[in-house]
């Protein structure tokens, strides 16, 4: 008897700033939608543990999409994208997410993202607070400089291996070896977009001095960061959460920058606490 997963994949076409994107997403569950953003240079397979977590999908409709140019979501079909350098901006990134939520007719979804997905979660809480029931920025901070590097797509090196091994020690040594190597494997597949994603992560994303304008009564913010994250270390996230009135920070022990794919069972413990807080507050 073949073993089938309950997770279903579909495509939906959306228009964002005149870019026609055919977006691939994975979905499983029912009830409150949770929209999940993968990390830079990666794809939605990072959320495989969450998508098949029966305890979550019993009450939550989990949707994990591939951002345009990642995984099975192509670059725009109506532009000669190969003639332009890809540099993701906060504005375009937010419009993509809001447009996708509209296309899927999601009511009051929770948004969760890790790393550059966590940083855009903060941006959404500031700029689109009424579109989301809450946001869960994972491994995020108000500002995250230092990773917009030429090495990610240097023509004299194996970019797939540079990206994958370059993020290797963003993971905790305690995380299961199989899951760390699967995450490594995913990272060999997105080398051409990693640097452009990191333009948003390290350059365009800068909320210093603006965190006090986030209204957590309209959109609660629950931040979570692993103790082995050297890029957004716990103190950076804690400092960010402290500046958001009503912001909440949860420190995750013995896990790194890719918690949902490097050690899902441990991440799930913290995620369930975040969801419990959202249920209590909204």
């Amino acid at each position, binding site marked *: 008897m073949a073993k089938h997963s309950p997770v279903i994949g579909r495509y939906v076409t959306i228009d964002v700033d005149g870019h026609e994107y055919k977006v691939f997403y994975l979905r499983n569950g029912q009830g409150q939608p949770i929209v999940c953003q993968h990390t830079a240079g990666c794809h939605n397979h990072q959320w495989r543990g969450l998508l098949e977590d029966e305890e979550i999908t019993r009450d939550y409709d989990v949707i994990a999409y591939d951002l345009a140019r990642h995984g099975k979501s192509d670059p725009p079909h109506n532009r000669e994208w190969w003639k332009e350098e890809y540099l993701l901006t906060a504005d375009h990134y937010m419009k993509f997410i809001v447009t996708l939520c509209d296309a899927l007719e999601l009511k009051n979804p929770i948004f969760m993202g890790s790393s550059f997905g966590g940083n855009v979660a903060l941006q959404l809480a500031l700029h689109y607070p009424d579109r989301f029931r809450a946001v869960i920025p994972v491994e995020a901070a108000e500002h995250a400089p230092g990773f917009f590097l030429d090495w990610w797509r240097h023509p004299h090196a194996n970019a797939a291996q*540079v990206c994958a091994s*370059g993020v290797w*020690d963003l993971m905790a040594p305690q995380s299961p070896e199989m899951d760390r190597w699967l995450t490594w494997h995913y990272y060999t597949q997105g080398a051409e977009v990693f640097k452009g994603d990191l333009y948003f992560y390290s350059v365009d994303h800068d909320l210093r001095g603006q965190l006090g304008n986030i209204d957590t009564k309209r959109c609660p913010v629950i931040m979570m960061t692993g103790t082995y994250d*050297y890029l957004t*270390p716990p103190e950076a996230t804690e400092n960010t959460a402290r500046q958001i009135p009503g912001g909440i920070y949860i420190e995750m022990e013995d896990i790194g920058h890719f918690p949902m794919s490097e050690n899902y069972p441990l991440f799930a413990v913290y995620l369930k606490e975040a969801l419990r807080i959202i249920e209590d507050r909204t």
Partner: protein
Amino acid sequence: MAISLRDWAVRFGEASDRDATIGAMARYFTCKYLWDMGAAKVIVEMVDGKVYRINTDPQPLDAYDFALRASPATWREFARPMPEPMYHGIWAASFRRDLKIEGNILVMMQNLRNFTVQFELLRKVGVPV
């Protein structure tokens, strides 16, 4: 007490040469790097995935492609079986601790997969400082 430099070189060479993860993609893993641990310095020369030579007494004009330099205390942290946060890799320690990566970094990037695996062998082999 730290392992002697000579014993360390033998153990490290053996551990690297029999490591299955390096062996799975060993071809072209060819480079020469310096590890500066303060009291101890070594130049490791790799040829097609095997340790060709470990120079345990580098002289001022001995050549290498790239170097990792950090305090002995940091190298001892690298060598713990389960390192503390920010000592768990070369990127982490160069961003958040005193590790300096110098020289021709392109060569390090060209060999990054296997070099990263090899660096983590210190957790099994230890360090001579």
